[in-house]
């Protein structure tokens, strides 16, 4: 294999799995190199995606217009009721505000909005510039909370203050202030919170239904189809079930410390992990064997229906190779398993925000020769895809057209998925989407992978 040129300073964030060879730990959790064409976003983005699905809250972006404009309803986080979260509110800071401060504007905007929409709570996102001009967001929020009687929560998400993960944390910090402020009366002992599930394409509804079938009460979903009142009583649940480890593990740990609620990490992608996430919850309630029985029942019913329908995809896709480059590393684990269950192998696995443990586990899971990357860029991705002869790329919005230009299939496993990929039905959808894209007749007309037809 031709040596792949990697950006200087990035060698520690890329490696190829070789057994018998001493390999360095991957270096991650670092900011991107100046001058790289990184696929990553910022702190604000992290906060915004985590809190965005709380549908009955007001989300006000305090900063120049861009930050609000680019995050206006781009994420298909579905609500079963209010849709206030889908509007775009911004203080639209101007030059004079930068000079004289934006506190007054923020105050008036909040008062106007709360009066007009009567939200259950308000999240105020600070952007880069707010961190520089020194607006005292805390003070404004306190004042407005006092005057309006609703929680007004600052989210310290200045873009430059770390990575997207710090944004998750800032969001969790705001949620933590809400949790514990509601009544826990009437909450069953057999209850959970679903953490890190954002209800993209209605996925949280699917998951919730499985748990409810098992006789488990779901106190709140953080934050998919989220409601402030549910968040406020989340501390009444017996167990936190955490998906999307990057975004919500911090919150789970805080809740464990403060309220003594234990947590487990799960994933709802693929048959194996989906089933495990039901069994693991059932195991938490050993005194109720009927819960485990119900879990088995759910799994058995779903798999019975799903398994045969997957076979046609497996037949077609057997031996095909996939490249994975997604936001969180935890998702990558599930995707590797899910792809294997439809006969595909993984030749490239990477994430934007994985940590050391994630990458160690990834290395363990991957086949010999698989390339593992942290915070990659388009040049690297294209090179590895070509050299490893991948047939499919799983990624987000910026990766999609690269895959198509290279003449390989693509599956969006990020904000822009249009159909649910979680749950058993999600596995079917996933297999179908992969099948459609990889086996599409369009590739007959395309010079594949840089080779002329």
């Amino acid at each position, binding site marked *: 294999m031709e040596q792949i*040129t990697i950006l*200087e*300073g990035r060698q520690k964030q890329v490696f190829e799995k070789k057994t018998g060879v001493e390999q360095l730990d991957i270096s991650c959790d670092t*900011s*991107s190199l*100046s*001058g*790289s*064409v*990184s696929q*990553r*976003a*910022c*702190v604000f983005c992290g906060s915004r995606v985590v809190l965005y699905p709380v549908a009955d809250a007001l989300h006000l972006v305090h900063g*120049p*217009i*861009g*930050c609000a*404009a*680019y995050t*206006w309803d781009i994420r298909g986080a579905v609500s079963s009721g209010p*849709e*206030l979260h889908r*509007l*775009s509110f*911004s*203080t*639209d*800071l*101007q*030059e004079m505000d*930068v000079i004289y401060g934006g506190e007054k*504007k923020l105050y*008036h*905007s909040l008062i*106007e909005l709360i009066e*007009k929409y009567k939200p259950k709570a308000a999240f105020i996102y600070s*952007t*880069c*510039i707010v961190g*520089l001009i020194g607006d005292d967001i805390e003070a404004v929020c306190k004042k407005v909370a006092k005057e309006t009687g609703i929680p007004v929560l600052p989210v310290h998400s200045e*873009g*430059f*203050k*770390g*990575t997207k993960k710090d944004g998750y944390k800032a969001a969790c910090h705001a949620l933590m202030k809400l949790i514990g402020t509601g009544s826990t009366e009437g909450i069953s002992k057999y209850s959970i919170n679903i953490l890190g599930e954002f209800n993209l394409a209605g996925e949280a509804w699917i998951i919730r239904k499985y748990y409810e079938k098992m006789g488990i009460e779901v106190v709140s979903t953080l934050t998919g189809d989220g409601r402030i009142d549910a968040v406020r009583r989340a501390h009444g649940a017996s167990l936190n079930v955490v998906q999307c480890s990057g975004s919500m593990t911090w919150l789970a740990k805080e809740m464990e410390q403060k309220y003594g609620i234990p947590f487990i990490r799960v994933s709802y992608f693929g048959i194996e992990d989906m089933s495990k996430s039901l069994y693991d919850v059932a195991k938490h309630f050993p005194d109720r064997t009927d819960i485990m029985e119900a879990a088995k029942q759910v799994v058995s019913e779903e798999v019975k229906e799903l398994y045969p329908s997957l076979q046609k995809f497996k037949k077609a896709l057997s031996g095909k190779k996939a490249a994975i480059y997604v936001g969180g590393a935890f998702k990558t684990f599930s995707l590797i398993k899910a792809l294997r269950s439809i006969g595909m192998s993984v030749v490239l696995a990477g994430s934007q925000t994985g940590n050391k443990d994630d990458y160690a586990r990834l290395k363990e899971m991957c086949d010999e020769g698989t390339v593992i990357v942290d915070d990659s860029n*388009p*040049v690297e991705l294209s090179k590895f895809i070509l050299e490893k002869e991948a047939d499919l790329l799983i990624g987000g*919005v*910026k990766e*999609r*057209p*690269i895959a*198509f*230009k*290279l003449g390989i299939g693509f599956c969006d496993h990020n904000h822009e998925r249009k159909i649910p990929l979680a749950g058993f039905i999600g596995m079917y959808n996933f297999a179908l989407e992969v099948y459609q894209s990889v086996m599409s007749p369009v590739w007959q007309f395309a*010079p*594949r*992978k*840089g080779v002329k037809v």
Partner: protein
Amino acid sequence: MLLRHTSKEVKEREGLTINPAKTCQPIGAMYAALGIHGCLPHSHGSQGCCSYHRSTLTRHYKEPVMAATSSFTEGASVFGGQANLLAAIETIFAVYEPDIIAVHSTCLSETIGDDLQQITRKAKDDGKVPEGKHVIFASTPSFIGSHVTGYANMVTGIADQFAVSTGAKKNQINIIAGWMEPSDMREIKRLAKELGVKIVLFPDTSDVLDAPQTGKHEFYPKGGTTVPELQSIGDSIHTLALGSISAEPAAIALEKKCKVPFETLDMPIGLTATDRFIMTLSQIGGVSVPDEITADRGRLVDVIADMEQYLYGKKVALFGDPDQLIPLTEFLLDLNMKPVHIVSGTPGQRFEKGMREILDARSPETNFKNGIGADMFLLHQWMKNEPVDLLIGNTYGKYMARDEDVPFIRFGFPILDRIGHSYFPNVGYSGGLRLLEKILNVLLDRQDRDALEEKFELVM
């Protein structure tokens, strides 16, 4: 009923923007820079800015969009971003090998006081810019102007920093493209070729953001105005700036630097604006208008006449960017339609001036507003107070269209949910015909949908 939150009563708001009809400057600078061949746009700010701009452009074009970032950290924000930018320039030339790096600033780097002119000069002085390569820059803080002025600033930077006056005039005309689609730029080039006028069009995103599937990911696609072309603009006999907000500032800079006289025209959207463009270009170029172009024009007029009865008096609400809205409004009036509400988030008095010139005589009662407070929320309120038959604007208009049950045409930036804008132009007579077809299609579809059984017509 997503927009049930919109109240009918219009109240003065204190600075708050709801559902903006604009976005921030840097994305415009990024888009403009993509119209230079072999150029890598560089965002001097936090990582998120670059990521958001690339994602938005990718959603709009369904194409890979390459750009680098200074990846500001807390340290850079305290000590200044010079070290980040210098390191970035070195890394980019070493790894991504562009011919040009086009740096634009952000709210963050501007507020901490980074001086791009000084830093890029230092990069050159320190030997971080290889022989024959270029670094250009534009100041684009997000708290001033909009994406449109950001575009204008980068185009001005391109003109000012590349143009060379050798003293020997070249028989060519510069055409500065205001913010338009790759398809529009392609059409401008086609029209000039048909006229037989040699032009240098810049920026030019055709063959960059409408690239074919080749089996390769071209980091620098084949399109874009080249460096030699850009250097030659200082010797051109004349400049045409298409758009007073997004293109004229570059023409002014070029006149100042290289004494190239210029004229500002509206973007050639619709019949009359295209007439002016063709006439001006043929006059300056000293050519007569070929029959093919005259025939194109005739076809457009023919269709307008054919379908006039379906257009007369139809009320239209439109929002978007000033340089498009001005000629589009004129076109709607030429079609005997009635633009009733017009909103643009981009600030500046040129919008009002342009609109007044068109509307004062022909439709003085039209509501229009731009800048602060001119957002889609306001437009929606206006639509509730005086309903319209048609809405024209970017993808975000779909909420209002659905809420008010109004036919809708996607036009402008961004379009995130349809294709076509990259491939089929809105400029020129053929662009006018395409727009007209779109307008008629949605109006007639609506008429069919709502027709009583006995009034459901076969021939229209």
